[in-house]
């Protein structure tokens, strides 16, 4: 094989592909061929670099130059200037938002500095469609080592590492494996839960797109530990790229004998099948997931029995999330002590988060447990967009809670987030600023859980709908203080009585906003005012007479005929007639229409 002197790593994750990264790769290859350098320079399609805010990313190796927001038409310049002449294309470099300086090496960017990448170790580094690159990075060595010892030893290693489930529940992984290994039965299953459903979350997708072999290897290790020869990956059909890469990796692993019969000459047989989900959020719940794979309606059943005792087809089944699996090989390569040295007392290792919302650096990050919310939001996330003020951060997906300024210095781990009224969840992190109305935020999440409820149990099926209706009523200015009492009682009862994790956590956004932003609720109800000016029905529009030029644009735009005034004289809005559509606000060129 040729010894390349230079590599261009181009992100082939779903986000960057949507921004033409496939075309960028083609153009780079064309330009390199045109320069006659095909034997010296290779273009590698990798998985996600995480810094999606700045994508598409092209990273030049060996000098570690990190080009951002690359377009296909930039390929020529990158090749002619950087590859041929060694001159960096400054305009494509990342600009530090504080210092306004260009930073060439991603290692020096705030976004990457505080990150520690274990689960994402190969993301943006290797070509996910080439198993050789995974093997070159110690791939499958963990499996080989495990196969030389006993399953009990391997389970012990996972237990000692302190790894907990990354899908949301935080159940100790080693213990889960141990229970499944002790469940009697010749036929057992390893299931990888890739039914990522939180809005805005793409941790699992990225791992499968960027490093599918790490999951395959971990599933095989798990199979050996619990005594299963069959693995199933339950993945949503909306992840075609992840599916494709997983299929390629499985095929390559089979070719090398890393899946199939007699793996690495050990006599251990293990293979994996892919099962497609149709994208129902509740199918991320492990019993619902199993029913879905069995061809039944995707709805949860009461636990116990846990899948470890009676899961897929009634057989002992171990279900772990993608990110959990991605941690496994490293634990065996570097040792459980090493892994356990990272993180907090009860939460070990790192956690991947999908940063989204009103934050500068939207993207995928991985930080050691115990990193504070402040570090994540300000150091890695680069602070709030547009210099606005931080208001809240929502963790744990739609059933998590909203945390506020007072929680910013809370070290992130399972127990701290739960104690603060939210949860770890699978790793969604949505940042909100002063313009976000917390009642509307709670309503938004309730709408999601109402849409995604399976309808099996009454509290979730009907209760969440009623919560949503009351929140809607409040945002329309029709709420009463009694509604707040009922909201609270209903939320508590739903948490207390719902069948599965979805329903038991769905009122969290309501309860946490009631706890942390009670005044905002009261403002909506008593003052008929939305402090963030988000709730349309509560907006009061007025015209600033000093700014109004009397151009009549607003009056002409008003569908309710609520604006009166002479040409070239200040106009006035009749608030009785105003239907709060905002047309005048959008029309005014002089910022004379104001929202009170």
């Amino acid at each position: 094989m040729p010894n390349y002197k230079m590599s261009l790593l181009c992100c082939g994750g779903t986000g960057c592909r949507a921004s033409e990264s496939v075309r960028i790769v083609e153009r780079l290859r064309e330009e390199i061929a045109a320069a006659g350098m095909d034997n010296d320079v290779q273009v590698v399609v990798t998985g996600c670099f995480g810094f999606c805010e700045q994508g598409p990313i092209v990273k030049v190796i060996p000098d570690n130059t990190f080009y951002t927001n690359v377009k296909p038409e930039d390929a020529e310049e990158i090749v002619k200037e950087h590859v041929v002449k060694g001159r960096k294309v400054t305009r494509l470099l990342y600009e530090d938002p504080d210092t306004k300086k260009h930073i060439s090496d991603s290692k020096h960017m705030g976004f990457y500095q505080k990150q520690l990448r274990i689960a994402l170790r190969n993301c943006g580094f290797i070509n996910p469609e080439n198993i050789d690159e995974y093997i070159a990075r110690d791939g499958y060595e963990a499996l080989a080592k495990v196969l030389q010892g006993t399953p009990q030893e391997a389970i012990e290693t996972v237990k000692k590492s302190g790894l907990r489930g990354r899908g949301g529940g935080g159940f100790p992984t080693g213990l889960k494996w141990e229970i499944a290994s002790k469940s009697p039965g010749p036929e057992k299953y390893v299931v990888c839960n890739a039914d990522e459903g939180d809005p805005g979350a793409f941790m699992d997708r990225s791992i499968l797109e960027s490093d599918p072999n790490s999951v395959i290897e971990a599933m095989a290790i798990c199979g050996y530990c619990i005594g299963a020869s069959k693995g199933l990956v339950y993945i949503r059909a909306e992840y075609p790229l992840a599916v494709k890469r997983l299929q390629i990796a499985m095929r390559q692993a089979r070719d090398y004998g890393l899946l199939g019969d007699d793996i690495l000459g050990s006599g251990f047989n293990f293979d994996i099948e892919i099962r497609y989900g149709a994208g129902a959020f509740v199918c991320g719940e492990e019993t619902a997931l199993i029913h879905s794979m069995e061809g039944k309606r995707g709805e949860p059943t009461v636990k116990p029995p846990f899948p470890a005792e009676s899961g897929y087809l009634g057989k002992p089944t171990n279900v772990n999330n993608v990110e959990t699996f991605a941690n496994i090989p490293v634990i065996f390569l570097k040792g459980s002590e090493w892994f356990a040295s990272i993180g907090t007392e009860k939460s070990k290792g790192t956690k991947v988060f999908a940063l989204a919302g009103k934050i500068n650096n939207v993207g995928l990050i991985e930080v050691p447990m115990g990193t504070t919310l402040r570090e994540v939001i300000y150091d890695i996330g680069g602070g709030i967009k547009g210099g606005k003020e931080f208001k809240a951060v929502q963790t744990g997906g739609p059933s998590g809670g909203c945390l506020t300024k007072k929680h910013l210095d809370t070290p992130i781990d399972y127990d701290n987030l739960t104690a603060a009224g939210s949860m770890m969840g699978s790793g969604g992190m949505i940042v909100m600023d002063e313009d976000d109305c917390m009642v509307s935020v709670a309503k938004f999440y309730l709408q999601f859980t109402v849409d995604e409820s399976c309808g099996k149990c009454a509290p979730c099926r009907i209760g969440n709908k009623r919560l949503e209706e009351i929140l809607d009523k409040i945002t329309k200015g029709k709420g009463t203080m009694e509604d707040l009492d009922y909201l609270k009682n209903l939320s508590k009862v739903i948490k207390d009585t719902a069948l599965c994790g979805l329903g038991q956590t769905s009122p969290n956004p309501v309860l946490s906003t009631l706890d942390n932003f009670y005044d905002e609720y009261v403002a909506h109800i008593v003052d008929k005012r939305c402090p963030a000016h988000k709730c349309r029905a509560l907006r009061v529009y007025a015209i600033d007479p000093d700014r109004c030029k009397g151009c009549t644009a607003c009056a002409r735009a008003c569908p309710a005929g609520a604006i009166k005034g002479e040409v070239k004289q200040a106009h006035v809005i009749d608030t009785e007639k105003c239907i709060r559509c905002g047309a005048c606000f959008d029309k005014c060129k002089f910022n004379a229409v104001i929202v009170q």
Partner: protein
Amino acid sequence: MSKIKSLDELRQMKARLESEMDIREKSNNPDKLVQIRVAMATCGIAAGARAVMNSIIERVEREKLPVIVTQGGCMGYCYAEPTIEVKRPGEDPVVFGHVNADKAMEIIDKYVLHGELVDGILPVNYQTIQEKI
């Protein structure tokens, strides 16, 4: 494709595959490695920089030296091409001029590996592109 039948076979395979990944591995930890930058502008290439760079890369790969080789643009020493800049970890960079393949080997033997300076050092009177950025 042949199956891998043991941990040893896996490791042998890994050793074979590693070299391809080498430049990426090293670029992950550049601060701990010696960085050699070959000036590859028009002047450098005309003076034989490509042959120099190839010989350095071959040696580095053959002997698995803790060295990362990159190409750079014109450093402004057109009179002394080919030039290479060598930066040992924690030290200031040193630029050598009139480097041919043999000279390059000497630089590696003495300066890169042992920190012994050799002839042909050019006075540093510029900022690197990286510093500028």
